[in-house]
């Protein structure tokens, strides 16, 4: 491999890592809900894309600068998150671990279908920010839009971590995730914590959806399944329930994905990522940061 190839390889890995913040956010979303309820919300990525769509819809109604679209996506994501909880979790018998899996799959289909119906399945353009900015660092070029996505993702994660570890709400969330019965006795309303968790993850998801749209430059309902799969991969590789794990795994998966795409082309790329997931599941089901190995 000569020097140019090496530079190209590193460049593509760097691009992937920057985009990987989206995966990290998705992984955090899956992991947060798993942490509180020990359930996987399969409709999460679809809801995130749905929130991004909703923000476009709002943007087309109200003339506003493109930056606002991210705030709107976050808000829409929060609302959708609450709705997902009410429809997919609140009334489903939680004793059966597989029931919520199916109900959230149902929601995934539902959200996808609503998007297809309102847009007739045509991909929509999404406002990309700083897409014309390119920051040269040595022989490498960092794309402005990806940089923006990366910075936004980092800000989002920092805020989330502060929220979880420095506020009373975060304490309650962690209490419920570790000792549901005891925390109820301490006066923490599980229902309230659950809804709040779903709203917060919804906000995170909405931002992730908007970031995806901004990085690709368009939105399509076809995105929600691959993103669901990527989010699950990140969650499992990072270790179910581990937030640092999700962040690391998100960046790693993003980087590896682009690395494989550079080496083997787009059609083979996902094969290796799936292989990685499969290997993790079989040989190290607890993920990188083993938190709750073999739970559920």
């Amino acid at each position, binding site marked *: 491999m000569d020097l140019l190839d090496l530079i190209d390889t590193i460049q593509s890995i760097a691009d992937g890592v920057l985009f990987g913040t989206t995966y990290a956010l998705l992984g955090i979303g899956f992991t947060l809900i798993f942490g509180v309820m020990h359930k996987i919300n399969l409709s999460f990525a679809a809801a995130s894309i749905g929130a991004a769509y909703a923000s476009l819809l709002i943007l087309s109604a109200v003339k506003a600068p493109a930056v606002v679209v991210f705030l709107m996506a976050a808000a829409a994501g929060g609302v959708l998150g609450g709705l997902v909880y009410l429809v997919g979790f609140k009334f489903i*018998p939680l004793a059966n671990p*597989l029931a919520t899996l199916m109900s959230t799959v149902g929601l995934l289909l*539902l959200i*996808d279908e*609503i998007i297809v119906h309102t847009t007739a399945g045509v991909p929509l353009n999404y406002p990309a920010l700083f897409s014309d900015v390119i920051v040269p660092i040595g022989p490498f070029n960092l794309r402005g839009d990806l940089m923006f996505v990366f910075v936004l993702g980092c800000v989002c994660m920092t805020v989330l971590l502060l929220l979880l570890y420095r506020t009373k709400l975060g304490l309650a969330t962690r209490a419920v995730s570790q000792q549901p019965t005891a925390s109820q006795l301490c006066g923490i309303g599980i229902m309230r914590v659950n809804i709040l968790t779903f709203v917060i993850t919804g906000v995170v998801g909405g931002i992730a959806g908007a970031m995806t749209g901004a990085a690709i430059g368009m939105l399509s309902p076809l995105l929600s*399944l691959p993103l669901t799969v990527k989010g699950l991969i990140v969650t499992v590789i990072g270790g179910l329930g581990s937030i640092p794990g999700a962040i690391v795994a998100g960046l790693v998966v993003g980087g590896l994905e682009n690395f494989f795409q550079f080496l083997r082309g787009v059609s083979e790329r996902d094969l290796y990522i*799936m292989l990685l997931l*499969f290997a993790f*599941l079989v040989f190290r089901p607890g993920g990188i940061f083993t938190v709750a190995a073999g739970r559920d």
Partner: protein
Amino acid sequence: MDDYLIGVLSNIGVISFIALSAYVLLLTGEISFGQQAFFAIGAYAAGIATALWGWPLAAAIVWGAAIGAGSAILVGVPTLRLHGLYFAIATLAFAEMVRILFELLRYQVLIDGEWVGPNGADGFRNIRYIFENDISSLQFMILIYAVLVATLSMFLLLERSRLGVIFRMIGEDETLAGLQGISVARHKVLAAGIGGALAGIGGGLYAHLTTYIEPRSFDVMLGVHSLAYGLIGGLGTAFGPLLGVLIDIGLLEAIRALAGYRMIIFGGLVAILLIIRPRGLLDEKLVHKIGRMWRLILPRGGRVKLGPSGEKI
């Protein structure tokens, strides 16, 4: 019979196989998002067998089923150690790997001046067995249902047999089943193998029905549907998943006005049913009730007489 009706019924028949295949694993309490992989493997294997190797259809279907079962067992051995969620994700990962592999698979042979065989993402065209052998679509539909009825009767026998009861035991309480002397791992792998064979049969029939298959047909959506059929129709009997297929394809087909909203209805149906009937329409309790009524009408003869009590227990 009208072409349209033949088409609908053939589709229902073919999809029933993958619904049954997901159902076997549901019986053992595992959710698999990956049955479409074995459907795809069966479809490709059987299609290659007839179109490229010139095998007869029956051999191709059996071959597809065998390959489906074999691969299901191979995947089942490492993944079935995982439980619930982890197993579901592992099957999902496997199925996506299979789909991507089929997108990369190119194996074409020049037959009669035309290239035939899987051509990556462009799919596998010209699985022309039914045209070359002049099988009408009605005949092929009858063939599908003959295989389905045969499979179903085997299945009903299986459900009444010790094996079926063991699957249900494992589904209800895996640890407890182990404490009754049942090797849970072995039976789960067996269930996976049966599921793989069923999906393989369905795939083989599907390939010959449409004459054209492509990798993206076998994505997660198909797997999710096949799971949902069992959950809607019920886990009490093998008729459950068939009822699910009938509700989805048959009923929605009957109410054409709803066709555009089918996924919305379908998704909603799954969510509602999980709340009001967590084990589907035909769940164990209902099946037991029906069975009891049946026995009242037709008393079963030949019960074993009670032995003299007080003997060694």
